[in-house]
């Protein structure tokens, strides 16, 4: 069977816009504007190849799946390399809005919609494959924290594929393709689904709100800065992890029934920020630096001792992380209690010197702990980005 199939898309589009240009006039301009709005989300692409894997140094997408996998007993280093070959090809195609090879439903590849996916590896994978010598510095299972109420079905895993996009159908279709190609090598341990704002709801770079109403992520290093590089991207150690990072993943349940009983003033003191605009209680706007020393006339600190931002502030040079938290909504009980929270992520070069000291301080004293309960936890070492022609993490498994 011979067909004149596809591949005329971009040429046809160019021809169409050329015709519009000839027609000229405001009517044509309106058509273009409408088309841009209709295809705004679909056409936006994130870059796949480079020093870093995609989907980390990027504004939050609308929807996400964290897919954690456990390798099969027979999976060895050689099969991991074949696994990564498939996943690399899949992500590259999905990130440009193309169907994966052998896609049983290629018609669902309707646009990139800022699709991203990256791959990381848990401490258990290094043990299973005898790769301990290639484990990055400062990377191990997180210690137990007092606040933790961890559930195994939300925790751990040998391999993480973290997928995100601005469109739920694009996400579902991409996730399906990546999971399908994982099945010769691994089984699914968990899939945790989350969301942030729809594109256009908040300007790029503006901090998102979580389901407690707080702006969440204010003190983050800014994307594309040297500061971000210093906090997040590893530049030493085994070659496979250079350009990569370490992820602490936490599923944090919110106790909204009791949180909602607090008044605005109490909520703001728990965090140390104003709910309205995220400004510290000592400032006027979100970007103002909190004045942790400021006191009320009665002598009490303006930002209370138990406030989240005080406890989370760096205790030493370099104690910083990059947070990229999505929300989750797992339903509502018969009595109307919502099962919501965060799929919280911290990216850093070294868990021992960056994330863990911060989390220890929050574990000791943070009034926010009364309403936020970690119920899932995992850690993954995220390989550097694939250069041209390279397979993700090929240096680890070759």
């Amino acid at each position, binding site marked *: *069977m*011979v*067909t*004149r*199939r596809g*591949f005329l898309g971009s040429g046809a589009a160019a021809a169409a816009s050329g015709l519009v240009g000839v027609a000229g006039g405001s009517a044509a301009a309106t058509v273009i504007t409408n088309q841009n709005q209709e295809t705004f989300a679909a056409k936006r692409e994130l870059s796949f190849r480079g020093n870093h894997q995609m989907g980390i140094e990027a504004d939050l997408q609308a929807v996400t799946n964290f897919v954690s996998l456990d390798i099969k007993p027979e999976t060895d280093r050689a*099969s991991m*390399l*074949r*696994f*990564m*070959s*498939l996943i690399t*090809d899949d992500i*590259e*195609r999905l990130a*440009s809005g*193309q169907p994966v*090879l*052998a896609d*049983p439903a290629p018609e669902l590849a309707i646009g990139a919609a800022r699709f991203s996916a990256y791959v990381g590896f848990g401490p258990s994978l290094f043990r299973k494959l005898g790769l301990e010598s290639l484990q990055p510095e400062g990377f191990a299972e997180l210690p137990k924290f007092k606040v933790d109420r961890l559930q195994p079905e939300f925790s751990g895993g040998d391999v993480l594929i973290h997928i995100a996009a601005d469109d739920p159908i694009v996400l579902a279709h991409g996730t399906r393709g990546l999971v*399908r*190609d994982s*099945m*010769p*090598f691994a089984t699914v341990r968990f899939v945790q689904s989350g969301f942030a704002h729809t594109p256009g709801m908040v300007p790029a770079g503006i901090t998102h709100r979580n389901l407690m109403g707080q702006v969440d992520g204010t003190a983050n290093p800014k994307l594309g800065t040297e500061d971000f590089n210093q906090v997040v991207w590893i530049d030493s150690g085994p070659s496979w992890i250079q350009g990569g990072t370490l992820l602490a993943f936490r599923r944090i349940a919110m106790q909204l029934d009791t949180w909602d009983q607090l008044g605005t003033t109490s909520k703001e003191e728990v965090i140390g920020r104003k709910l309205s605009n995220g400004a510290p209680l000592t400032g006027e706007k979100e970007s103002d630096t909190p004045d942790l020393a400021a006191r009320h006339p009665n002598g009490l600190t303006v930002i209370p001792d138990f406030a989240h931002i005080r406890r989370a502030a760096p205790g030493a040079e370099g104690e910083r992380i990059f947070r990229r938290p999505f929300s989750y909504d797992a339903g509502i009980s018969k009595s109307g209690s919502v099962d919501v929270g965060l799929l919280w992520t911290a990216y850093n070069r070294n868990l021992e010197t960056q994330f863990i000291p911060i989390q220890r301080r929050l574990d000791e004293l943070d009034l926010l702990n009364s309403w936020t309960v970690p119920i899932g936890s995992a850690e993954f070492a995220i390989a550097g980005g694939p250069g041209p022609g390279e397979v993700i993490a090929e240096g680890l498994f070759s």
Partner: protein
Amino acid sequence: MKKIAVLLASVLLLAGCAPAQQVEISDAWIKSGEMSVQGGMTAVYGTITNKTNNDIVFTGGQTAIAGLVEVHEMAMIDGQMKMQQIEGGLTIPAGQTAVLEPGGNHLMLMQLTGDVLAGDSVSVEFIFEGADSVTLDDVIAKPAEGGDEEYHSEEMEMSN
């Protein structure tokens, strides 16, 4: 989108003529599954574009991993859709594209010399009448089922 390496250069230099590219093959993949084991069979899929000004015929292929390679089609045999060899090959008119896909035309590999595992990269030569052959060195093996495929091959004696 991934670019597939097309190894035409040496052939063209020897021939002393320089058409940029006669045949373009993209999105090629080979199926990995329960049947793609040593002695078994599998198939190669992809998109073949005839960039010449003449009709060409896709007549077969060659690969180190298979003892027998044929161009197959899906046909109605005894009231059922089955796969069989295309007599004389698959004609691709000038400037047109042929899609090899599960449930349709494909390059059938039989008498496999080893297992084709998910994620393997396989070198496959596509052979044409009216154009130089094209060798792809990185045809990736995808875990895939579907396409309602039932193989019909006299060589394999699998017909009902």
